[in-house]
Every structure is written in structure tokens, then in C-alpha cells.
């Protein structure tokens, strides 16, 4: 459920002051980073969202600064892959300032990080984030006393609502001005290793500066969890919520395709055809049938994909995903995985690639490999588009959401089956403890949900335009040559025919076979190429398929599309993340 292949930060230059944001997972670093830089880094209520670095340059008080959003880490001395990323970063790249982000309610334990940063010898400003939640928990923090104790500026802020933010930024500016002529600093890990931080150190730092209420007020989470984490009804309830998401997407998303279709048809009839009519006929054929129809088909999915991710962003930001990990762990444990693998699979709904990268939070290599093995089964947005297209064409409207939901169930079932089989091998023996923080429920803001939905959409389109044009052009060539042939006599038709002995028994006709072959590049190509193969606009293709393809064959087509192979980018990522070719060809 996140952006495809987030680019690793480009960090070779150090011509402007560099500021690193650091903190435990889920403390709101990305949200603060977005507020400062105006960027849209991935924000989510799930520990372990940011697994690669992102950076941005901003102008603050007449000075250009570079901010780096580091992955959340529990311990500066930890050994998991994300913790190593941070340690390596601080050792390799000198910084001018560290912004330490802390969840104010959890200052009792998170105060460790400022103390550690101090040992590393880095200049820092401490942001006690989520001031709004701390207030609800009736926690009192005297920032001045605390600041004197830690020896660093301390600010109580809310990255989400903006409270305390101007002061905090002014403070960052002040620290930077004060050390304007000082060169940036490398972290001194030896000094950190030599000092022993005890519980007493933490307690002494906080005493007289932080006051927790004797009896903590009952939180909404406690009340809600009684239902949502119910030992028997918790899991069915979760699946009911997911089913509801599909109904919403279906009920609103599907009609929206018609509107986009009307727009693209208008462009084709009023602009493209008159203009191209001036040129040779083959050019018109090539542009309309080779490129435009494919592009238009993918475009018709834009509202639907956005809607799906608005819903998913809301579910995730609410804090429901960590609960899902808790609920599922009971079952995942039995097949050598843990609850987090399940959540990674749900993240794979957007695109398998970032979900694969998300497995970096797992320390045990066997667990990680096994999780990477099952993520490609996850039904990503590209496959979603294919399925919606086919299902809407073939099945009666009332059954649509259920049929679609069944594919999600099948994708999980297939993943579990694969894991169950492979976990028997010693190579995949899980050695990682399952310990997961359950964050409080948080109300998603419209802005956040919008940013996420929009981000997913942009990625979907980026991928689609990269692959779809190449894919549909290739399909066009195969289905238009030799020049005087039509239908099954073309190269493409013959290729489809060639595979009929295998595909006919599972009810897939030569046209659909050809679409599947190109689906290996990227799944978006499947629907795009269907338009090209039939040389009709999306609406007409759907009609045609509805007439010629039986529900059973359509189901079999989708199933095949789900299971036969992940797309090229996913395969490449599996290889990169697992660092082995052998593993890549496994699935």
C-alpha cells in the first residue's frame, strides 16, 4: 500500500546545512518532515513505514537547508537493517543538526534517544510531538526544566495540527545560525558505546520535569479494542471492514469509469481522429489503436484506484493495521510467519515493490525471505484494474464486489499455502521474536488521506505510462502484421493459438492469452492490450468480452493473471532485496 520504488535519497553533495530527522517508528517524523518541506513522504500509523531515506531542500529564514527523513529506529545501538541504515548514515554523512522526534506521551522511555544523540556529539533539537495526545493523556511536561537537564532545546509540538510549530522552527534556525561557521559533524559511535545508560539516568532526567497522572484517563483505544480485538469476533470484524471497503469502491468507483470513458471518447472523436485523418491511414491506426486506446483504458481506472487508496489510507491511519497484525499472528505463526507479514501483504495491495522493501524491518533473514516469497501473491493495484475490468464485463453487478473480494481471499490463501510448504524447510526457520507496538487510534485528516490517495495514483500512472506504451505498441505490431491478415491470422493471433493446447482447457481464448503474455512486463498492460487486441475502446471491449467469455472462463483468466507471475519490477526487487538470483526464480 505504498509508493512504488521510492527512490533512495541522493546525498553526495553537502553544500547546504544538512538536518537529519531521527526518532522511534511512528512518532510522526514523516509528518513533521512533510510540514517543514511541503513534501509528501509516506505517513502511516504503522511502525516501519519509512524504510529508505528521503530528502528535500527547503528555504527557511533566507537559508537553504537540506532535510533528511531517516527510517524510524528503536535503538541507536540496534542491529536490524533499518537501524544499520541510520548508523551508517550518521557515520558516513556529516550533519549540521539532528531533529529528534519523540512521542510526548512516551517520553518515559523515548528520552533515551536524545541522551544517546548527545553522546554521539551531534547538535540537536528535541521535538516532543503529539502534544495533543499528551494533553488527552493528562501528561504534564515542563520543557524548560527538561531542556536544562538534557542540554538541548526542547519543544512541545503537534506536527499534525501545527501547535507549537513556529517556535520549534525558530529554534532550529537559531541553533543553525549559532553554528554557521562550524563544519558539520560525524557521529562518534565509540563514545556512545563507552557510556552505559541506566534506568536511573532516564529517571533522573525526567524527575521534576515530566508528570504522569496517577490514574491514566481511559483512552478511546481501550474502549474500541474491546470490540475490535475481541478474541472471537475480532478477525471476522476485520474482514467485514475490508469487504465494506470493496463495496464502497465498487458502488462509487465503477460508475466513475463511465465518466472518464466519456471524456477520453470525446478527445478521440473530436481531436485525435480529425487531426490524424489528415495523415496516412496506418498512422491513424497506429496512434489510435496502438497507443490511445491503451492509455484511455488505464485512465478510466484513475478514480477507482484513488478511491480504493482513500479507503485504505483511512484504515491504516486509524491504526487498524497493527491490530490486524495482532489478530492474524495466531495463524501466521503456524506457517513460519508473523503478524507483520500479513500487514506487508496488505501493503502490497498498492504495489508489491515497496511492500518488499518494507520487510527490511525484519531482522531474521529466514522470516524476511519467507515474507518476500509470499508478497508477490498480493493483489496489487495493477491487477485490481484488470480484475475490475473483467469482472464488471462478465459478472452481474450485484456479484461484482464479492467476486473481487474472493480474489483477495484467494491471493492470501495462495500465499499461505506457499508459506506453509516452504516453512517446512530449515532454511526458513523463523528466529525473530514477535513484539509489536499497538499505536493508539488516530483520526485520519483529509489532507493525509488525500496525499496518500494522490501519491498512489501518481505511482500507478507513472508505472502505467512507462510500460503501457511499450506494451500496447508491441501488441499492436503483433496484431497488425502481416499487413493483410486479421484476427487469429496475425502473428499475435498465432502466438495465442500456439498456446491453446495449454490455455484452452482452462478456458482462456487466444486473445486473452496474448494479453497475459504481455502482462509479464506489467499487469497494467493486460487491460491496455485488450483494447489494442480487439481494436475497440474500453467500453466496447468490455461489451465484447461480456458476450464471448463465460463467467467461469473469466474467473479462470483472473486467477491465472493473479498467480502466473509477478511483474518485471517486482521480480527485480525480490532479487535486489534478497540478494540472490536463486531466490528470485523460486516463486
Amino acid at each position: 500500500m505504498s509508493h512504488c520504488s521510492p527512490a533512495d535519497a541522493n546525498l553526495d553533495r553537502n553544500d547546504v546545512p544538512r538536518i537529519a530527522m531521527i526518532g522511534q517508528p511512528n512518532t510522526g517524523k514523516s509528518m513533521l518532515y512533510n510540514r517543514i518541506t511541503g513534501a509528501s513522504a509516506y505517513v502511516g500509523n504503522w511502525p516501519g513505514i519509512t524504510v529508505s531515506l528521503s530528502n528535500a531542500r527547503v528555504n527557511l529564514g533566507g537559508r537553504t537547508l537540506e532535510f533528511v527523513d531517516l527510517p524510524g529506529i528503536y535503538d541507536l545501538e540496534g542491529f536490524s537493517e533499518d537501524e544499520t541504515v541510520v548508523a551508517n548514515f550518521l557515520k558516513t554523512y556529516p550533519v549540521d543538526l539532528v531533529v529528534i522526534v519523540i512521542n510526548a506521551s512516551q517520553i518515559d522511555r523515548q528520552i533515551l534517544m536524545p541522551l544517546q544523540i548527545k553522546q554521539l556529539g551531534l547538535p540537536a533539537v528535541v521535538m516532543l510531538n503529539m502534544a495533543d495526545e499528551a494533553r488527552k493523556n493528562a501528561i504534564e511536561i515542563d520543557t524548560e526544566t527538561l531542556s536544562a537537564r538534557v542540554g538541548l532545546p526542547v519543544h512541545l509540538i503537534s506536527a499534525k495540527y501545527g501547535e507549537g510549530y513556529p517556535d520549534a522552527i525558530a529554534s532550529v534556525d537559531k541553533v543553525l545560525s549559532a553554528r554557521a561557521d562550524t563544519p558539520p559533524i560525524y557521529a562518534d559511535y565509540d563514545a556512545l558505546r563507552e557510556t552505559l545508560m541506566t534506568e536511573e539516568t532516564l529517571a533522573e532526567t525526567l524527575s521534576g520535569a515530566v508528570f504522569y497522572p496517577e490514574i491514566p484517563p481511559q483512552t478511546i483505544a481501550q474502549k474500541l479494542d474491546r470490540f475490535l480485538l475481541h478474541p472471537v469476533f475480532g478477525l471476522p470484524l476485520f474482514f467485514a471492514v475490508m469487504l465494506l471497503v470493496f463495496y464502497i469502491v465498487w458502488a462509487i468507483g465503477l460508475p466513475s469509469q463511465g465518466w472518464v470513458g466519456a471524456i477520453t471518447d470525446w478527445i478521440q472523436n473530436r481531436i485525435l481522429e480529425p487531426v490524424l485523418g489528415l495523415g496516412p491511414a496506418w498512422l491513424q491506426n497506429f496512434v489510435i489503436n496502438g497507443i490511445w486506446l491503451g492509455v484511455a483504458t488505464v485512465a478510466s481506472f484513475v478514480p477507482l484506484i484513488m478511491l480504493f487508496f482513500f479507503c485504505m489510507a483511512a484504515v491504516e491511519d486509524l491504526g487498524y493495521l497493527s491490530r490486524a497484525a495482532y489478530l492474524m499472528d495466531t495463524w501466521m505463526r503456524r506457517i513460519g510467519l508473523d503478524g507483520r507479514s500479513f500487514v506487508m501483504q496488505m501493503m502490497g495491495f498498492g504495489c508489491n515493490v515497496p511492500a518488499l522493501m518494507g520487510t527490511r524491518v525484519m531482522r531474521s533473514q529466514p522470516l524476511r525471505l519467507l515474507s518476500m516469497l509470499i508478497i508477490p501473491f498480493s493483489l496489487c493495484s495493477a491487477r485490481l484494474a484488470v480484475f475490475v475490468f473483467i469482472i464488471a464485463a462478465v459478472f452481474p453487478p450485484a456479484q461484482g464486489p464479492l467476486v473481487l473480494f474472493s480474489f483477495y481471499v484467494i491471493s492470501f490463501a495462495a500465499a499461505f499455502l506457499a508459506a506453509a510448504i516452504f516453512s517446512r524447510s530449515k532454511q526458513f526457520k523463523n528466529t525473530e521474536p514477535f513484539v509489536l507496538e499497538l499505536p493508539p487510534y488516530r483520526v485520519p485528516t483529509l489532507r493525509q488521506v488525500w496525499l496518500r490517495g494522490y501519491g498512489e495514483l501518481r505511482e500507478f500512472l507513472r508505472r502505467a505510462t512507462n510500460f503501457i506504451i511499450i506494451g500496447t505498441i508491441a501488441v499492436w505490431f503483433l496484431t497488425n502484421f502481416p499487413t493483410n491478415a486479421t484476427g487469429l491470422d496475425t502473428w499475435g493471433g498465432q502466438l495465442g493459438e500456439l498456446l491453446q493446447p495449454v490455455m484452452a482447457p482452462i478456458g482462456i481464448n487466444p486473445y486473452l492469452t496474448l494479453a497475459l503474455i504481455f502482462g509479464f512486463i506489467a499487469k497494467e498492460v493486460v487491460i491496455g492490450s485488450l483494447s489494442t487486441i480487439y481494436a475497440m475502446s474500453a467500453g466496447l471491449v468490455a461489451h465484447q468480452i461480456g458476450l464471448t467469455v463465460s463467467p467461469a472462463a473469466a474467473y479462470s483468466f483472473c486467477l491465472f493473471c493473479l498467480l502466473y507471475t509477478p511483474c518485471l519490477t517486482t521480480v527485480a526487487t525480490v532479487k535486489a532485496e534478497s540478494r540472490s538470483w536463486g531466490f528470485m526464480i523460486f516463486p
Partner: protein
Amino acid sequence: MSNDPTLETLREGRIVSLESLQPGESGIVEIVEAGSFENGLSVRLRALGLSSTHQVSMVRRAWFGGPLVVRAGKATEIAIRRTEAELVKVRKIQD
């Protein structure tokens, strides 16, 4: 051996594993054993506020051998597997 104070308290039944607490019961963490995790478990738990001298209470227990939810320190809820919770020894707070 018989005058080992830890063993004494164990016999009195006051030091128990976190796994054995019932919802609503709480204790003070004594030690986190390594088990098969080397120090991986204790380092992660320390960062989450579940380490020696800190208070921990049981919030809920999933059925079918599923994980537990415990509250560590003031405001942190943690899901933890039973096998892992078994390694956390706590001094039970009687009320």
C-alpha cells in the same frame, strides 16, 4: 543454593513469567531472559519500555494460543507472543 534470594521468592510464587499474568494483573519486570533470541529480545523490549524496574500489566489475551497485549510503562501497548512473554520474569504486584 537454598539461600539464593531469587529462588526464595520464586518458591513463594512472587516472581512469575509475564505470560502467566491474567488481564488486569500487573508486575515489575525483574529480568528478560535471552531464550533463543540472544539479546535481540531484551534490546527491543527495552526500547519499548519493557525492562527491569518498569511496571507492566496484562491487558488482553488472544484465544487459540495467540499473542498477548500488555501495557508497558505509562502509555505503550505492546502485542507480544506467549513464547516471548514467557521469557520476561516479573515480580507480581499483589493488590
